[in-house]
């Protein structure tokens, strides 16, 4: 049997990866997602360092979702060492976290994914033809940048999160300066969401069986929580590693994960949306319903719907924070380090981000394990690519390689992979 292969670099995703197509005599047999970006061994670097340093180091794992890493690390130690975070500081931290979700979703939807929906090769092309969309994208992007800067110090790798809370509550006048544009941002979020919902007609409609995993929160749309829900049951974050199985394949510098029973699962906006739809604001739900969307979403291409809905939801939530902001004096924090094992999890923009730290008698980290969302989605990317090709009837041989590769890249982009995270 003759087997040929074709490799192409993944574009419009964060980081360095390749798609490899493996063809049999007539049909495509397998899709592989090659993660070629070199790892940085951050878990190794953390060894011997104090827990108070960990949020800062962890944030360097990802420039797009650095706040997720800071919050996951900080909450792991806070919960485990019974460190209380004052209410106002926690609200500020959540606002920074929400700003990060907004920024990440804007980058993904407007700069990376939009060209797929509209059938072009880059957002620069989209913007040339549609100046209104460009203006909206730019305004929205700049607002999220400004919010991150005022609340956190800069656009990424922000300096205002530590174990126990924050370093400083920004001046009320600075925060209020975000207020006027917040109204515009909400309008932009709604318009963008509507634009996505309208254009989703162009996306594939076949139904997929998906196992979804997400954090759950009894009141809010989830960002930080101790509880993970999967397959109709809930478990504590400390049990996460027992629920999943790690694997390493020769072509990926990222580890990959399935459930302990060997099932493929998905984390990210589509899972959050499907499990926490009723925690979205009424305004967002109504907009979704008017376009006929309800949970669960049954096709990975609908990830963009979930992302647009989240963008809308988080813009509303950030605007609420801004309007009701009351700074308080931040007290000095003395962290008493206790040895033990500490678990933390957050919903990063791309899904569940899990941290585990072992702190020894010397008060330093002896072992760290970090499982980013993209690593968890890698197997689903391959599996869903084959499902997609099969649903399109696009299983042809090597002569179809360009078209096949294009479709596979579209599927992968729906997961918004963050390759740098996956090879932390």
């Amino acid at each position, binding site marked *: 049997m003759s087997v040929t292969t074709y490799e192409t670099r993944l*574009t419009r995703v964060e980081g360095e990866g390749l798609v490899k197509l493996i063809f049999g005599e007539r049909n495509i047999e397998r899709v592989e997602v090659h993660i070629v*970006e070199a*790892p940085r061994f951050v878990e190794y670097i953390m060894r011997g360092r104090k827990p108070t340093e960990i949020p800062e180091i962890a944030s*360097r*794992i990802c420039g*797009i979702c650095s706040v997720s890493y800071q919050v996951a690390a900080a909450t792991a130690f806070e919960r485990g060492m019974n460190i209380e975070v004052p209410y106002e500081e926690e609200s500020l931290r959540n606002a920074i976290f929400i700003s990060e979700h907004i920024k990440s979703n804007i980058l993904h939807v407007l700069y990376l994914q939009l060209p797929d929906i509209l059938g072009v090769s880059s957002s*620069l092309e989209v913007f040339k033809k549609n100046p209104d969309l460009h203006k909206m994208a730019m305004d929205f992007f700049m607002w999220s940048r400004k919010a991150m800067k005022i609340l956190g110090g*800069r656009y990424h790798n922000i300096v205002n999160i530590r174990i126990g809370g924050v370093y400083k509550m920004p001046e009320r006048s600075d925060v209020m300066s975000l207020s006027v544009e917040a109204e515009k941002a909400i309008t932009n979020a709604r318009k963008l969401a509507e634009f996505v919902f309208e254009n989703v007609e162009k996306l594939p409609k076949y139904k997929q069986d998906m196992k979804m995993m997400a954090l759950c929160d009894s009141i809010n749309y989830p960002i930080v929580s101790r509880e993970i829900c999967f397959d109709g049951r809930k478990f504590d974050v400390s049990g996460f590693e027992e629920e999943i199985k790690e694997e*390493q394949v020769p072509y990926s510098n990222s580890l990959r994960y399935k459930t302990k029973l060997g099932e493929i699962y998905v984390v990210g906006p589509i899972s959050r949306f499907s499990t926490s739809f009723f925690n979205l604001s009424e305004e967002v739900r109504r907009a979704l319903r008017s376009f006929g969307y309800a949970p669960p979403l049954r096709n990975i291409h609908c990830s963009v719907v979930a992302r647009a809905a989240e963008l809308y939801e988080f813009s509303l939530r950030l605007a609420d924070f801004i309007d009701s902001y009351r700074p308080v004096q931040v007290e000095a924090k003395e962290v008493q380090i206790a040895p033990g094992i500490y678990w933390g999890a957050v919903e990063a923009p791309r899904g569940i981000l899990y941290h585990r730290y072992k702190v020894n008698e010397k008060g330093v980290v002896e072992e760290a394990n970090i499982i980013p969302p993209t690593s968890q989605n890698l197997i689903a990317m391959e599996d869903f690519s084959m499902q997609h090709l099969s649903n399109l009837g696009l299983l042809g041989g090597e002569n179809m390689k360009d078209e096949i590769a294009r479709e596979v890249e579209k599927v992968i982009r729906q997961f918004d992979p963050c390759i740098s995270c996956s090879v932390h």
Partner: protein
Amino acid sequence: MNKLRIGVEKLTSCSGCINEIIYALLADPKLTESLEIAYFPELLDKKSLEGQFDIFFVEGSIVNKDQIETVEDIRERSRLVIAVGTCSTYGGIQSLRDKKGVEEVKKHVYPKPELIDVEGDVYSLQEVIKTDLAIPGCPVDGNLLLRVLRKIAIGSKDISITESLCAECKRKGLECVLVKKKIPCLGPITAAGCGAICPSFGRGCIGCFGLRKDISSKEIENFANRLEEAGIMKKSDVLSLVMRFSYAKEKGYFEKIVEERGR
């Protein structure tokens, strides 16, 4: 006027600086008009390097032969190569694993370490090819990048940063956190450029823009001694903080410190 042909490549990094590059390339529509973004896989479906470039931004540090070949190719094709961010300028936070024996390091993270193509220490771009400009920052400041682009667009080049962060605090009128509050701050030995973000949040500078270019290991040592004498922080802790973002700049010195600490 001919458009400036721009390329962007990401090596080993977190992509934070990629966001800042996107900002710098797109924030000013007039400037964007004068650019041709010809290679930028994070943003465009263009898969391979073709032709010559006026400016090539390289983000991230270098850890294997493939990356060395890539940057050598970039050098040959480009009029100006600019190292963007602390990783590209000094090696970045991942340099902290240097000299530990990379095979040993791999074992701590991967069940099958033999599959991982990482060959030795972490290198900055400047250690591998000649760069025309290096702009540190973790992440780099997008506005600074924007100013550099503008300068090049109107035909100027070379900006050198040897000022310490302290100057930025003075300009902003910030009270010195080190002197006044005895908070450990790396400002005096760290390159300016961020706008004194940490001190304006009431904390000490974490050194993410890397050591000042003109600082020697002797001066780092003096600085750490002074902080210890003043009862602000133990010398070994100060050095541990300094090396987080600047390990690769004074490899020989920090290697010795880590060894001594291990004993």
